[in-house]
């Protein structure tokens, strides 16, 4: 597995973490009513989206490099 493939695996894990953090913060917001948690939740969701956009850019940029 090349660095390209491993980077994709890493990106998927990072997106999942960002989504989890978004859900976690939203849950904290619902429990405590703390608006800072709501902001954190939205920032985490935005981070997940940014990582997906970056992933597409990365795949285009390194399309000539092998996955092995």
């Amino acid at each position, binding site marked *: 597995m090349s*660095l390209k493939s491993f*980077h994709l695996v890493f990106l998927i894990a990072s997106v999942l973490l960002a989504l989890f953090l978004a859900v976690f913060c939203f849950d904290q917001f619902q429990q*405590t009513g703390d608006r800072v948690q709501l902001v954190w939740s939205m920032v985490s969701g935005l981070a997940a989206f940014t990582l997906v956009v970056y992933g597409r850019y990365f795949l285009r940029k390194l399309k000539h490099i092998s996955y092995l």
Partner: protein
Amino acid sequence: MEIPYTVKPRPDTGLYNAKVGIWLFLASEVMLFGALFSSYILLRVGAPDGFWPDVSTGWPHGLLNIPIGTFNTAVLIASSVTVVMAWAALKAGNFAKFKGFMIFTVICAFSFLGIKSYEYNEKFTHYVVRMKDGTAVTGHFDHEFLHGFLDKANTRRDQKNAGLREANAKAKQEGKAPKELLSHLSNRFLTLEKFGEENVESVKMLVDVPSAFRYPVGMKPPAVGDGSKGSEHGEHAEPGGHFEKEVKLADVQSIAAFIPSTATFFAIYFTMTALHGLHVLGGALVLGYFAFFGRKMWHQEPERLTNRVEVAGLFWHFVDLVWIFLFPVVYLL
């Protein structure tokens, strides 16, 4: 003798040797961290019921700083992006761009370690005070009280050390063994015994007020008073804040900083994060070496340098992936 298959793939594996080597190494690393993650799960599942700190063995929640941990996670994700960009720059034959990306990666690595050190220091100055009646509180010592105490204690220790030095000089002439000098106290790692040595009768603390973050999902923190001026907890008693409290040492069973010997949680937390931190440091040194000393190899064997950077990048990604799992496990859940 020339090392074989540093650039060309070996016919039977289809890969250059270093890539096979790094994956075998990473497989052993998976077992190492896998064992630690398994230990964490078993320790947590096996922890008796009860909530920190009232039950010493209860599993603590929310003691770590989530915003700082999140920022550190973002720093590591950014470093993974730049390390792969550095490798891509070498593939495109652009050494200057490679160097820029690589230096940024190394800066990220040392930023991560710097922030982690700050977090560690926070834990070393955060205390759990267990009372003889079985209750416990967590918090920091009041700044003014602490500085007064440290000034007094260290002045006394300096005076005692001056006497000890004189006695040691005499002992040296007589061929006797010298006595050990007293070390200075700091705001870290204080204990009940250290306060006792200085004949302190009570300590002033800024006690943590339980917040929802300190309890598992669905569990509400206990009431902490009405929060009004003059009440037991003073005017800043809202959850997540602090209130001042004078604690008589005659009522105290133990005072311990948030260090590995204080609770199982801290033992596994420090073990896992310190081991991970060592990996970050090792990776940063290797990446820094390529950034600052890779030019010569780039001119002589560009493909070999590119492969070396790929191998180091694979290690770096593994280290970052470990953090992606470590962060939610110890900070959030």
